[in-house]
């Protein structure tokens, strides 16, 4: 096992990087994940199975995204990790600490600076570039799972392009509530072939996947699937002609910190003053404030 040369660090973190391979995994694990990633890019929206090693972070807490990030990671990368749009969320901080511990790679809170962005439940506001890679954490990669519990059966539905289940779920919402009631993880059709779960990003973020300049990789660690949306690929949120896809609208709200509107916002209600709104993407909010 060849260790990389590392910059001077505190004793305990040097110890860490000496006991583990660069970026945690052994090379055999990384190879398997890398092969899965390449096939995922070649078949947009299709869930490629992979072995999915256990990580020091719990299943359900981002191990899929993390396995992708660690398999991509090189010494020159700059990594941003967010959760619910926030760099400082406890889980994002924890993931960054693990990445740093096992690779000593530079961490950033700036979307523009990052080469790899791992995220749970949001795509950043700032449009990404061709030299960046977006990595999304996925709890449930199977968009038909609520319709059909069996993995054996959903594999075959995808093979046969039988997506009546996905349409049915939307149709039922419309019948019951007069509109599509689901919020996040609204299913999309990729390259006109595979229906895909975009991960629980809000509907607001779905359009960012269409013709993105950056590669988007999605990892489900517990369910052991990797899938991808290559750059410049058609991604369309499922809808009906008479009930078109309607993302959340924040045009009439202003961020209490930076004043912007028309970005995805968090509703803040501390029970004292009136309800306030704040940019969900904390990195872009700070940049807008100039802090």
């Amino acid at each position, binding site marked *: *096992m060849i260790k990389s040369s590392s910059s001077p660090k505190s004793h305990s973190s040097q110890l860490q990087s000496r006991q*583990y391979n660069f970026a*945690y*995994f*052994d090379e*055999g*694990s990384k190879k398997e994940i890398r092969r899965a990633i390449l096939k995922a890019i070649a078949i947009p929206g299709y869930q490629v*199975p992979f*072995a*999915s*090693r*256990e*990580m020091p972070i*719990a*299943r*359900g*807490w981002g191990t899929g995204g993390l396995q992708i990030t660690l398999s991509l990671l090189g010494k020159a990368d700059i990594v941003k990790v967010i*959760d*619910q*749009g*926030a760099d*400082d*969320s*406890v*889980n*994002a*901080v*924890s993931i960054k*600490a693990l990445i740093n511990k096992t690779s000593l790679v530079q961490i950033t809170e700036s979307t523009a600076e990052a080469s790899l962005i791992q995220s*749970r*439940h949001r795509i950043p506001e700032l449009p990404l570039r061709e030299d960046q890679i977006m990595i999304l954490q996925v*709890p449930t990669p199977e968009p038909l799972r609520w319709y059909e*519990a*069996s*993995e*054996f059966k959903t*594999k075959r539905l995808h093979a046969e392009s039988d997506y009546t289940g996905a349409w049915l779920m939307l149709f039922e919402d419309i019948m019951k*509530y*007069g*509109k599509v*009631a*689901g*919020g*996040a*993880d609204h299913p999309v059709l990729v390259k006109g072939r595979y229906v895909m779960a975009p991960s*629980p990003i*809000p509907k607001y973020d779905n359009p960012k996947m269409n013709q993105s300049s950056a590669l988007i990789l999605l990892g489900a660690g*517990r369910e*052991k699937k990797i899938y991808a949306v290559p750059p410049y690929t058609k991604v369309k949120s499922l809808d009906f002609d008479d009930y078109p896809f309607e993302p*959340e609208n924040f045009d009439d709200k202003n961020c209490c910190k930076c004043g912007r509107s028309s970005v*995805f916002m*968090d*509703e803040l*209600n*501390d*029970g*004292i003053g009136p*309800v306030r709104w704040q940019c*969900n993407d*904390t990195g872009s909010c700070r940049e807008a404030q100039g802090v």
Partner: protein
Amino acid sequence: MAYVAVKGGKQAIDASQEFLLSKRLKSGVLLDVQQVRAGLRVLIDQVMAEASMYDEQLAALAIKQAEGSPEEAVFLLRAYRSTLQRKYESEVVDTGKMRVERRISAAFKDIPGGQILGASPDYTHRLLDFDLFNEKQAEPSQARSLPDDSMPLKEDQSGHLGFDQLPKVVEYLRDQGLLARFENNDTAPSDVTKKNLEFPSNRSQRLQIMARGQTGAVTSLGYASLRGYGAVHPTVAELRVGDVPVYVAGPPPMDGDAIDEQGSYYIGEFRATEVESLVPVNKIEADGKQSLSFELGYGLSYGQNETKTIAMSLLDQCLEHPNEKFATHDEEFVLLHIDSVESSGFISHLKLPHYVTFQSKLVAVRASRQQESPSNAQKKTGPGAP
């Protein structure tokens, strides 16, 4: 501090970890890993089995670090296992060559080699022994008088058979033609830790997943099947606990395609529990006649994990016979939900912030209420409202 503050997440995590550490250290009494190893043998066996990693020392360390939580200890070991290179496969292990320490059969009153009770709590009375409060380091004289598990028992107790020569009970049934004899199938196993499980699964995959399944989960599902949520009625033909040797093939020959005599290398042994259960099965022959015969349900685990291994042998039979009426006969239901790391991980992920997805749900709920009665939209909603 809010669960997500604009600043402060890192400090909060650091403080939380220090607090956790202090829980283990604050009494000033530190648990020695050797004490864990000496006194928590059964927990070590459970943790090694669920982690599918056989290393008593590391398991003891994990248990100490996890303050006794099997869930956390298994997680630690599995995560460590992920970092290890996997270059070799052992040769097929022959549990017939197990150096048996305990071996019983419920199917027959007497078996060749005898019913050997070994070390088991089965016949102890579960009465709390308050004397253990005062138990200190064993006096040297006391230690000598305890049975040494490396001491061979008297020959006549084993019927002149060595402890690594005890025949399998099921061999008797095979000889009688009551249990089918199969040719050895030496297809390489499908390693579930290297390749994703797909359905329909094969038996190798099913057995691996159950062997590393969470003890409680496997036990509960076996119990459910036994109580009627399943169609399998087993009898334990044999349960054996003992040490099994492991061999690895020597390096391949460099010249020529001919496989020369490769040496096998003994690399050690591991303690295992093996259960072979017999299940009567109705077979419908080609001519429509029905006949009853036996099938084998198989269970195997690292260490001494008897309850789980018996349950495993039961579930093995359940999954050999898919049956839409029972969840215990549904391979996806059983295999996808018994893994400790996966189940505890996903359940505990509900503690992660979900406010973005929740915001979407709020929007949806408010919108639907607005449609019911527009006047409600005027009222203030959300937590903390007076």
